């Protein structure tokens, strides 16, 4: 079975999952408007209907949806991306340091609390219900002592829909997946290359989009890759469609790429 059989009926898209991917890549469907949770739910429904779990396609789906999530979260963060990227090492270190000091302070305080608790070892309190003759009076709360408006206000509060976050102002990415796809295909025509080489000197957004393009090449059976060790070099090679690379190698590639 293939993921192509996954039919979606979403707010912004209706059709097979494959087509959705293509449209996202061509930027004809706005990833920001796509509720990825709905795609996952549709896939789970799909699995349930089939009544069997195909590990290969499930892995493929997880990888693709993870890549979409990553890309979407980066799209949503574009506004802050500049700041995140341009942060000075000293400033980053100061922030990290402040956090470490905070954590350290409360870890020490927790040791003090643990000492206090140990010091109370053996002290027990009585936990017994009130004797029956006294118990009767405790529920004696005046009738009508509570105001029903409290309940109305609470329901009104719960009916409030929080304003949705407006993401319209977020700039479009400067790199497109289509662009990176062409770039990778160009490299492939010349033979093997390492992912690090392919993104050398690129900013984090470009690295992420390149990774996504690479996933797309894998999905189409145009490229495969190998990574000898965790966080090690990923070498990418062209593939004729018959021999897909082991899907698991992808996980290493995913974490190795942006970290490099």
């Amino acid at each position, binding site marked *: 079975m293939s993921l192509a059989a996954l039919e979606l009926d979403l707010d912004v898209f209706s059709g097979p999952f494959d087509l959705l991917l293509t449209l996202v890549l061509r930027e004809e469907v706005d990833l920001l408007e796509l509720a990825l949770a709905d795609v996952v739910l549709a896939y789970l429904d799909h699995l349930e209907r089939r009544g069997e779990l195909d590990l290969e396609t499930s892995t493929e789906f997880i990888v693709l949806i993870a890549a979409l999530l990553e890309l979407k979260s980066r799209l949503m963060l574009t506004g802050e991306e500049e700041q995140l990227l341009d942060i000075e090492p000293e400033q980053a270190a100061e922030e990290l340091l402040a956090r470490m000091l905070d954590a350290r302070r409360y870890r020490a305080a927790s040791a003090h609390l643990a000492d206090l608790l140990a010091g109370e070892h053996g002290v027990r309190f009585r936990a*017994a219900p009130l004797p029956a003759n006294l118990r009767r009076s405790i529920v004696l709360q005046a009738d009508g002592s*509570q105001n029903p408006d409290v*309940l109305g*206000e*609470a329901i009104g509060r*719960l009916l409030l*829909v929080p304003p949705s976050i407006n993401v319209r102002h977020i700039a479009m990415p400067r790199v497109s997946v289509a662009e990176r796809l062409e770039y990778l295909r160009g490299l492939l025509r010349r033979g093997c290359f390492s992912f690090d080489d392919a993104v050398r000197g690129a900013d984090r957004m470009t690295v992420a989009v390149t990774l996504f393009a690479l996933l797309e090449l894998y999905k189409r059976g145009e490229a495969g890759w190998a990574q000898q060790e965790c966080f090690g070099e990923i070498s990418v090679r062209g593939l004729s469609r018959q021999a897909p690379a082991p899907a698991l190698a992808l996980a290493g590639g995913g974490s190795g790429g942006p970290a490099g």
Partner: protein
Amino acid sequence: MSDAADARKPSGAAVEHEAELPSLARTVEALLFLSADPLSPAELADATEAGEGAVLAALAVLAEQYAPGRRGLRLRELGGGWTLASDPSTEDAARRLLSRPRASTLTPAQAETLAIVAYMQPVSRPEITRIRGVSADSATATLLERGLIEEAGSSQFGAVLYRTNSHFLKLFGLRSLEELPDVARWDASPDEQAELRERLLRAGEARAS
């Protein structure tokens, strides 16, 4: 039972000999204090690792200590066991202390949970959680304990359902549930036509996301 505790006695304190209990009597006193139910001499002997004779002697010491009129507590023999109880002479004060309506105001979480149960009943805890956007477990437990809501069977998915009860109506001065304030008075978005339950769930999901 060791006598180590004696070593902790402050040396400078002017301690009457009569007021200091023997070690086993002290332990038995603590066990009677901690236990909600009467304890038999056999249970006390097991717990203190003393003989039943020694336990009976310790109980006799305590019985003298707690003789009527001496303390605010009494040592009483009930159904073959021994228990500490408040002296009847203290009952008026106990009633003044304990019959006071404590925690009579609802926390915001409790008010929300109670409102959901009141307007939507019967309603399950998962549904309450979905509407509030956060867990309602502790609020539900408190409302149950305070007798404002009660269980009303199970939903088709096996979740316990809750409803309000007559104590709730009395406390809020309502003759029936129809007297609950009209939601429209508090409605944030009156133009929407959807059913209350549906709108609550939608708002809850927007909050939780």
